[in-house]
Every structure is written in structure tokens, then in C-alpha cells.
């Protein structure tokens, strides 16, 4: 069930998606115990951030819309958590990183790696915070600068998490690869809004947020499928994965691993174990020995 992701050795292809749990060593340990093959922490910035007022999350018909606002204690404080997590966890520890400038991305990534991160995932795709996230990842030129600068500072795998809120994800993926990205996470949430008819108000305090869950799965799957045709680096599928069948679809589309987040709310942390077990059963049924054998299989004509 093991997979190699740009040099990271995963015992199974499931990963905790960024933004979910991931503040503390204890919760990450719980996620690993529940079966995740790797964990991505909450996104961390140079300075502490409070996040937005509630409501920060709202239920849509087939998913969740969130605008939590990237709360985090800042890399100086979080480095302590990384150091102890490094000792406590026996799976790759990926730190999600964001900044408000090229320099901030680079310095947070460098500090994360020197504290013990096995890799970093650049959050260039959060749809609800100004001057960072998708505002970086929507612009190929700025994105290139950020990735180059980070790559120059760290000697660990750099994963770039892409935004679906772009005209052409292909162009952006292409720019990320040229700039030196070691892997791509496809995709972050889709920019969305929920409005309450009684009060006539947007429900989220930030008004707009990002949609995740089953509603976005076919969109994420298509993006993985398209990006796979175009790049030679591994892809991590992310968007609405809740069971083994979803996960296998992403692997067939071209993902080497999958991230799970929203599904934890309804399925519990055991979703990791169940997805892994289901993929194993599927492989056996198909007479295959490793996960890598089905990666991109749907592209055969």
C-alpha cells in the first residue's frame, strides 16, 4: 500500500488535508493512529493570526463552505509543535505554509524545515484571505517567484497546492513545475457563498469562503485528470474524498496520493483506515500488487 511522493515515503496513500485539526501534536498523533499515511498541518504564517469571527463554517447541500481565516500561532511558536511532532509521529510531517510576500513564504518554509518538517505544502490557494493564498496562486509570475525562493531555502520536498479559482489550472500547474515544485496538490476549495433568506445576509462573517466536500469532487477529479496529462511530477488528489471508491477514482485520474479533510466530520477519523483498506481490497480484486499500478490508469485509450 506504500507510495513514494516526491521522496516522501507514505505507508498508504491517504493524507490529512491542511486546515483540518493539525494545531497540536496530540491531534496529529490521533490522525496517524487512525491510519493517515502522512499529515499536513494547519497553514502557518510568519506572524500569528487570529482568524475571522464566527460563523466560519456553513453547511451547503453537499459540502461545507468555510472561511476560518487561517488562524495560527505563527511559525516561531509553531516550531515547538513541529519539533515535538517530529519525535512523536512515524509518518511524513508536511507543514502547510503561507505568507504575504515571497520572503515570508521562504522564511516560514525554512523555519518549518529546520524544526523538522519532512516537507512543505505551499498554500497558494486559500480563497478567503487577501494578499496571500489564491492571490498568489492565481498569478503565474508571482507563484513562480514564491516557489523559486522557497526551493532555494529548503532541501525538502515542496508541494504546491493549487486553486481551482483560476482561468486555467494547466497554465498555473505548468508554471509551478517550471519553478521547481516537487509535487502538486489538486485542489483547494472552490470560492463560494451562502445567504440566509430570513436575515438576507451572507452567513459567513467573511461573507465568502471555500466550498469543500462531495459537491466539489467531480471538479477536483477533472482537474487531477487534466493536470496529470501535463506534468511529470506527482499529484496529490484533494476534494470531496470520503470513501475508497472516491480515492480510487482520484488514483485512476492520476493522483499518487489523496488528502482527506471534510469527510472527517461525518465519517470520523477512521475514514483513513477505511479508505486504505478499501483501496487494498480493490487492488487485490484487480490482481494488482501496488497502488502505483493504478495511478493514471484511466488515461489509457
Amino acid at each position, binding site marked *: 500500500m506504500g507510495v513514494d511522493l516526491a521522496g516522501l515515503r507514505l505507508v498508504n496513500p491517504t493524507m490529512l488535508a491542511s*486546515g*483540518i*485539526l*493539525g*494545531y*497540536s501534536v*496530540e*491531534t496529529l*498523533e*490521533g490522525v496517524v493512529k487512525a491510519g493517515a499515511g502522512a499529515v499536513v498541518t*494547519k497553514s502557518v504564517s510568519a506572524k*500569528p*493570526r*487570529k*482568524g475571522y*469571527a*464566527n*460563523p*466560519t*463554517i*456553513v*453547511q451547503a*447541500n*453537499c*459540502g*461545507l463552505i*468555510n472561511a*476560518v481565516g487561517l*488562524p*495560527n*500561532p*505563527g511559525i516561531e*511558536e509553531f516550531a515547538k509543535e513541529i519539533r515535538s511532532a517530529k519525535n512523536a509521529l512515524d509518518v511524513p510531517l508536511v507543514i502547510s505554509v503561507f505568507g504575504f510576500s515571497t520572503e515570508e513564504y521562504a522564511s516560514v518554509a525554512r523555519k518549518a524545515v529546520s524544526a523538522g518538517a519532512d516537507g512543505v505544502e505551499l498554500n497558494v490557494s486559500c480563497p478567503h484571505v487577501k494578499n496571500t493564498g489564491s492571490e498568489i496562486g492565481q498569478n503565474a509570475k508571482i507563484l513562480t517567484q514564491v516557489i523559486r525562493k522557497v526551493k532555494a531555502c529548503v532541501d525538502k520536498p515542496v508541494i504546491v497546492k493549487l486553486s481551482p479559482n483560476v482561468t486555467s489550472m494547466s497554465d498555473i500547474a505548468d508554471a509551478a513545475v517550471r519553478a521547481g515544485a516537487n509535487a502538486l496538490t489538486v485542489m483547494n476549495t472552490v470560492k463560494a457563498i451562502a445567504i*440566509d*433568506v*430570513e*436575515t438576507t*445576509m451572507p*452567513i459567513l*462573517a467573511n461573507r465568502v469562503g471555500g466550498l*469543500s*466536500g*462531495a*459537491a466539489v469532487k467531480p471538479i477536483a477529479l477533472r482537474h487531477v485528470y487534466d493536470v496529470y496529462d501535463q506534468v511529470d511530477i506527482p499529484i496529490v488528489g484533494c476534494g*470531496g474524498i*470520503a*470513501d475508497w471508491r472516491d480515492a480510487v477514482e482520484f488514483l485512476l485520474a492520476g493522483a499518487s496520493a489523496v488528502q482527506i*479533510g*471534510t*469527510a*472527517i*466530520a*461525518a*465519517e*470520523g477519523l477512521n*475514514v483513513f483506515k477505511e479508505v486504505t483498506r478499501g483501496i487494498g481490497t480493490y487492488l487485490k480484486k484487480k490482481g494488482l500488487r501496488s497502488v502505483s499500478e493504478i495511478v493514471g490508469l484511466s488515461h489509457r485509450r
Partner: protein
Amino acid sequence: MKSLACHIDANHVRTKPIVRIEAESPTVKTFILRDKQCARAKPGQFLMLWIPGVDEVPLSIMDAKEDGTVAVSVKAVGEATRALHQKRTGETVGVRGPFGNSFVMRGQKILVVGGGTGIAPLMFLTRKLVSNAVSTTFVLGAQTRDELLFKSDLEKLGTKRVRLLTSTEDGSCGLTGLCTEPLEQMLTEEKFDMIYACGPEQMILRVFELAENQRVNVQASLERLMRCAIGLCGSCVIGKYRVCADGPVFTSRQLREVRNEFGLSKRDRYGKRVPLD
């Protein structure tokens, strides 16, 4: 096909008019809403109340009835709760939930210890205990007489059913001091099957320590900063537990596991561990 994994029915926001408001003390009001889903809540569960344009806050459910109403008792302490206190009957708020686990009712001789607004979920529990004819002793604490919540409601349940002990820090009603002070003696003299506690966390910690000495099991409801309320965002973690999804009610065994945070620290809005107030 299995149900959509992302879909949690209770998590949809329902906007509702406030049906009734009752003053419980100079600083605490009870707000009653009509909401089918929350009306089915169990003692110990909580809901998220949206004050449109202001904030959304987690609140313990104080009562839930077959007539489809749910009640929360709220102290005006911050921006959100002060804004809620300004609301009048008929004005609209949003509600999602109920969330979290609930008190497990076990045993025939029960001790309930509540301080401040922590009494709210215990009030809900006590009504159920009484209807199950369980012998209940309720130790009710507050800073001063005016803030002793639900004293008359508890008295109305009948002294045969609920033995009530009150304590105030200023001595204006009942025993003088913290409500945990009479416990030590009570626990040595009587054997309780279970202790239910809610209130300031230092109070709960003291109850837990005394109960540990006498080997009595505790179920305590804890409070932490909450955002998503469905176990995703990690804002409310204590040790390996998420208060919203694994709690808010924790057993003695679980409390032992989080001893290095319980009664000592919480996570602030930045996710940083900070000392409890």
C-alpha cells in the same frame, strides 16, 4: 448509495424567531426557540447560536421539550452575548446543532455539582434524572445570591427528589465559599454512583480531584473556543480530544488522559496554548 459523507443534517443553519426570553438573574437570560432538531437534544449537548452580523457562539442546551422548543441560558460576557441580551422576542437568530455527546445516565445515587452558568446543562440533566426517579443531590454555587441560577426551578422539583445545597462566595445564600468545599465531607460520608459537573474549569478540576480520592466516577462538561463544531477545525482540542466532537462531556478516564491541560490551559484564537483565565 451511502449517504453523502459531507452532509450533516444538524449542521444546517436554521434562522428562527426568539419565542420567549426569561430573566434568570441580573446577568443571565434564557432564550427559547422553536427548533425541531434541537428540541430532540440530550442533556449535555450544545448548539451553535448565530447572532446575525455579530458572531456565532456555542451554548449548552438548558432544556429541550417535546413541544419542539429548546432553551439556552446565556450570561452577557462578551460582544456576542451582550448583543444577544439586546434581542427581543420575535427577533431572528440562527441555530445549528445539536452537537456533541451527552451525559450518560448511570447509577441510582447521583451528585450534581454546578457553578455559574455551568448549571444550565445540569438543569436539563437533573430534570431527566428526576423523571427516572434517581436520588439526586445538587450542589449549586455562585458568587452571590442573585446569581444562583435555577434555584427555584430545582426547589420546584421537590426536596424529596432533589436534595439541594447552595453555596455563595460572599455568603449571601447557603454555605459561604466555593461550592466544592462541602464536597470533601460529603464524599467521605456518602457513596455516590456518579458525579456530574459543569462550571468554571478550576471548579471541575477540584471536583475531579476529590472524586478521584474517593474513587467516584465523574462526567464533566468542558468548554473551549469553538468554530466549526463538527470536529474539523481543531480550535477546541484538549489533548487528543476535540471538545465539540469527542465531548463536551468527558469521563474520569478521559480527564486523566488530559491532566496536563485540564484546569490549566486552553487554546486561544491563534491556536496557541495559553493558561486558563
